[in-house]
């Protein structure tokens, strides 16, 4: 026995020694690629394979164009589907012409055969049923010729019937398709789509549009809208005003007398039907008004009433034909009629997606049970038919999927899908990738190791990686839309209530100082934004305005708002940069750090004086230092290292900058309890004091962002910042004459976003198409400046990410374009075939250096 054990131990030891003696790639393999440039671009080798090896955390489970819900689910769409129109880099701008490579893009017909032809006048005359306004002459109806070469992967033709039948199914009232509203709820609104989608239904419409001044009292005592729809108070039904998740009853239940008048609440609740709606009568209107306006803590008046009511709309039963503005006008031609006018870039952009499905397969995948329809279309290889550049060849739920070239795709042979490479001026076919292997890799650590072994094409850097890789030539920074700002509590009533609680010691702690503008200003100058980003989130950069760097104001040219003189000037004005001291406006903007400790100290002193005068704090010992510590609760949804680092940084820099001021050592950021999804409500109600929050909107519409800062439905600071009370004068053209126009901030925002605003009997509308773009930029910049001046939002971070790209591939363009990215799979070019790559990785000892 002893011998046996000794033998076993000897074997284990020998094995251990062999393992220890194994030379790892890290120690022995020379790194031949480091610091070198990839080989010269060459045309793809015939018969060679180029596999794009991708990873995702969550694999798509449903990529049905009618029902998918998440971005994870939309992943396969780029490979399997093509829009009517597509975006490509503009080949006419390349180095051979002495122009920066790919400075713009072009839109070319894909599943369409030509650009849409406007037939508004003709359709208006021939088809009055689509309701094109009498005054409209263009932008409402288009004839689109379809690409006759487009087929499904099995060769079945795609024609006008496919488009019409697909739309019919998408909008079918029985199927309740998630994506149906994409075709009527936004700017891209197909005529009659909503009516057909709601055919025969009665619904409570909650869009906060009920005009109380236009209500009429019905015979039954219930108020009706101008269109005759009865109005209801949403008592215990969720409303959009509370993010669509909570109802008035939820809020009253949670906060009760603290925020609401409870005098008539029971009576209002009793009037609600089983669905949670109470008919709006004289009585219930009075109850509702009392509930929301009777307690000053809720801080609302009667103008907020529309947020709490819905109207009950009945949709008549209608047929698709003659209702929905999408019909066949030829075997390969459709006519599209819109409910709202749309033209140019915006039309083509909306048509860069597609709704078509393979009708036979789609119908076969439908099931109905107890009146609820479900579909398995596009949930497996068997239920998927491609009409794009790749087809799905394997799929395993929650594991992996693989795509290979769809040889039946017209794009490989139509001669259109070629590009001139700006690096060598030669012409290449697009879609060099022959296959896409996508697998689930849940852990970042695993992704990193796989990437370094050459098994993945890219790796998104994590916080620990920045020091090592941010200078790598394979590292790419990708900005995104969101600006993160620190919101500072200004809700005086709420703060007073908190201070009044029994466990609050007013002799040592204070919250009221936070409401002073001078304190906000001091805080704003306390933090170096770039340093803040580098410390807590290195993939991001410093944020200075409330509109990020990624927003394009002119999609036709790709011009960005942040690059305009108006946007630069507003930042210089806000950060008090003397532009005349710099060679250019660009240099002046580049000098902004948002950090000015000396000026911050002045503001801290001012805040101290104001706070003493107001009785917020005391200085009983006369040492010139506040007796109370300003305790700022940082609102967290859930605790994390990021939160800890953020709060630590805020404290550290506040301590540094307040040195020698009356608030030296008297400002303390603390973490709140984890509030989950309630964090935004806590901030809005002044129950927590600060948070790094952010908004992002469509990258192509920076103008729409003003609504987020002026509309109480969205504002974090709605309880203490009323945009209707903030006046702003801007010099804008009125009837062709430059005029100083004064309106409140909310009115400017509304006018900028297409609403007609009446001031002193004059109507103003500066929406898209109603005003020239320079005027709109002037207004946007002025609004941004005014919002910044409130100091309720202190810009801190410009969102973004960084990733490494494999040495096997390269992008034909380095600069990130918000619409085109860096060309994606369409333009990805390979330095090595799969076989060469495997050999190359082995040559490097199995571990690559980046």
């Amino acid at each position, binding site marked *: 026995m002893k011998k046996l054990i000794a033998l076993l131990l000897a074997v284990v030891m020998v094995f251990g020694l062999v393992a220890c003696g194994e030379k790892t790639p890290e120690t022995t393999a020379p790194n031949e690629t480091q610091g070198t440039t990839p080989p010269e671009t060459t045309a793809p080798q015939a018969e060679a394979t180029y596999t794009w090896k991708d990873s995702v955390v969550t694999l798509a489970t449903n990529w049905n164009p009618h029902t998918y819900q998440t971005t994870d689910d939309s992943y396969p769409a780029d490979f399997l589907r093509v829009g009517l129109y597509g975006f490509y880099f503009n080949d006419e701008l390349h180095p051979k012409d002495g122009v920066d490579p790919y400075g713009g893009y072009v839109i070319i017909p894909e599943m369409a055969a030509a650009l849409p032809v406007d037939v508004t006048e003709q359709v208006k005359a021939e088809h009055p049923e689509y309701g094109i306004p009498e005054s409209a002459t263009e932008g409402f109806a288009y004839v689109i010729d379809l690409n006759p070469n487009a087929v499904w992967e099995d060769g079945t033709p795609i024609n006008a019937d496919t488009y019409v039948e697909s739309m019919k199914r998408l909008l079918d009232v029985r199927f309740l398709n*998630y994506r149906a509203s994409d075709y009527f709820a936004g700017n891209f609104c197909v005529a009659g789509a909503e009516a057909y989608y709601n055919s025969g239904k009665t619904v409570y419409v909650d869009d906060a549009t009920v005009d109380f001044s236009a209500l009429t009292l019905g015979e039954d005592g219930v108020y009706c809208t101008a269109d005759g729809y009865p109005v209801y108070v949403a008592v215990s039904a969720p409303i959009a005003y509370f993010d669509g998740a909570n109802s008035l009853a939820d809020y009253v239940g949670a906060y009760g007398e603290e925020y609401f008048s409870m005098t008539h609440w029971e009576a209002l609740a009793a009037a609600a039907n089983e669905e949670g709606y109470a008919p709006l009568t004289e009585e219930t209107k009075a109850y509702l008004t009392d509930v929301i306006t009777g307690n000053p803590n809720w801080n609302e008046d009667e103008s907020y009433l529309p947020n709490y009511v819905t109207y009950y709309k009945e949709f008549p039963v209608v047929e698709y034909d003659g209702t929905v503005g999408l019909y066949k006008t030829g075997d390969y031609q459709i006519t599209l009629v819109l409910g709202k006018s749309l033209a140019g870039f915006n039309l083509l952009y909306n048509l860069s997606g597609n709704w078509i499905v393979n009708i036979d397969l789609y119908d076969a995948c439908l099931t109905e049970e107890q009146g609820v329809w*479900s579909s398995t279309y596009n*949930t497996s290889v068997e239920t998927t038919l491609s009409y794009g550049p790749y087809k799905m060849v394997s799929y*395993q739920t929650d594991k992996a999927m693989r795509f290979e070239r769809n040889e039946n795709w017209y794009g490989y042979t139509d001669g259109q899908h070629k590009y001139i490479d700006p690096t060598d001026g030669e012409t290449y076919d697009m879609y060099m990738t022959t296959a896409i292997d996508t697998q689930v890799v849940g*852990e970042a650590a*695993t992704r990193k190791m796989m990437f*370094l072994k050459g098994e993945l094409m890219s790796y998104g850097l994590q916080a620990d990686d920045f020091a090592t890789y941010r200078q790598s030539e394979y590292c790419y920074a990708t900005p995104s839309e969101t600006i993160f700002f620190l919101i500072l509590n200004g809700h005086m009533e709420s703060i007073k209530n908190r201070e009044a609680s029994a466990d609050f010691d007013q002799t040592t702690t204070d919250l009221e100082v936070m409401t002073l503008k001078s304190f906000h200003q001091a805080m704003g100058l306390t933090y170096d934004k770039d340093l803040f980003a580098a410390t807590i989130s290195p993939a991001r950069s410093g944020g200075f305005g409330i509109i990020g760097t990624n927003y394009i104001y002119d999609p036709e040219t790709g011009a960005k708002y942040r690059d305009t003189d108006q946007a630069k000037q507003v930042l210089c004005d806000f950060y008090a940069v003397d532009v005349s001291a710099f060679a250019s406006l660009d240099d002046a903007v580049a000098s902004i750090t948002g950090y000015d400790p000396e000026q911050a100290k002045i503001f801290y002193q001012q805040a101290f004086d104001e706070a003493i005068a107001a009785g917020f704090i005391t200085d009983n010992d006369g040492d010139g230092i506040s007796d109370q510590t300003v305790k700022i609760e940082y609102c967290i949804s859930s605790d994390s290292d990021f939160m800890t680092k953020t709060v630590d940084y805020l404290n550290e820099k506040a301590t540094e900058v307040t040195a020698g001021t009356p608030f030296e050592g008297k400002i303390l950021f603390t973490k709140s309890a984890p509030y989950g999804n309630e964090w935004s409500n806590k901030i809005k109600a002044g129950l927590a004091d600060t948070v790094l929050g952010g908004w992002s909107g469509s990258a192509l519409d920076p103008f729409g962002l003003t609504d987020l800062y002026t509309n109480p439905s969205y504002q974090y600071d709605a309880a203490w910042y009323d945009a209707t009370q903030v006046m702003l004068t801007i010099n804008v053209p009125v009837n062709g004459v430059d005029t100083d126009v004064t309106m409140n901030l909310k009115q400017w925002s509304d006018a900028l976003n297409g609403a007609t605003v009446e001031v002193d009997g004059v109507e103003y509308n500066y929406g898209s198409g109603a005003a020239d773009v320079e005027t709109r930029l002037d207004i946007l910049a002025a609004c941004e400046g005014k919002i910044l001046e409130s100091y309720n939002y202190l810009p801190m971070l410009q969102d973004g990410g960084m990733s490494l790209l494999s040495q096997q591939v390269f992008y034909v363009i380095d600069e990130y374009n918000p619409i085109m990215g860096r060309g994606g799979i369409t333009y990805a070019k390979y330095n090595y075939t799969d076989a060469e790559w495997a050999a190359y990785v082995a040559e490097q000892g199995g571990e690559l250096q980046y």
Partner: protein
Amino acid sequence: MFKYTLQRILYMCMVLLIITAMCFVLVRMLPPAELPPGDPHTEVVEARREALGYNKPYMVQFGIFLQNVFTKFDWGISDKLYFGRDVAQIFFEKLPVSIIVNLYSILFSIPIGIGLGIFAALKKNTWVDYLLSTATMIVISVPSFVYAFIIQYIFSYKLGWLPFLMKAGTDYFTWDMFVSMLPAVMSLSFGTIAGFTRTTRAELTEVLTSEFMLLARTKGLTKAQATIRHAMRNCFVVVVPAIFGSFIGVLGGSLIIERIFAIPGVGGLTINAINGRDYPIFMLTTCFYTAIGLVASLVVDISYGFIDPRIRMGSKK
């Protein structure tokens, strides 16, 4: 014994029904997953919830649920995570891989764990025993995902002997698939080996010092004969139920290990179903695991009676 078993099964059904009812009501009390303010899809989501009956009284919904399960074994259609697909089909599609990975782990772990336990017991109070006991405590204290990362780093990244992830496909019994499962199997095995080592060592040590063992030796049996014929049998009164428990536990999968090695098993289904408010999946997994837990405890209890005839279940003095 029969009466006792029948009684336990009856209780088990009652407990299952109560837990099912509680879980059903609690999960449906959760508000629907929030969409951004003003999202135009809110209306569609609400309409679909209405159509699916989620706005009916909870007990009515529960009645419909039970009716469908008992009359058609219909657990519903996934409305979120696997839109449109039969949840039972998804679950039973994902279950085999969890079972196989865990089964491999158990099959490796039990003989090694018991072997080491016996060895440690026989070498009680020697350096071998101390080494094994210390190692066992360390291994038990460290969670399995730590081993997962260490194994991945050493065997997949540094040595390149094993793949990072489990191979895609359903060819579960091929050599390639087996090799791709090894990192996960190894990660799961450490803890189980340590558990069995500790249990076996503790039981066997106690048995070896019993008086009947002395009697056996005085009757002329060798140490090996006495250990195998008498000590092991007694020691297994505790070890065998633990083996049963482990085998039943293989059905549960492992959330973290499955995530690290991209095993498309059932480990993360329940959590994902709660986060995604996918009620049918949540109910199926909850009922399944509750039933498994109850059956496991029943089997373990009954197994005592078979292993050790001195134990009589349900008998009255």
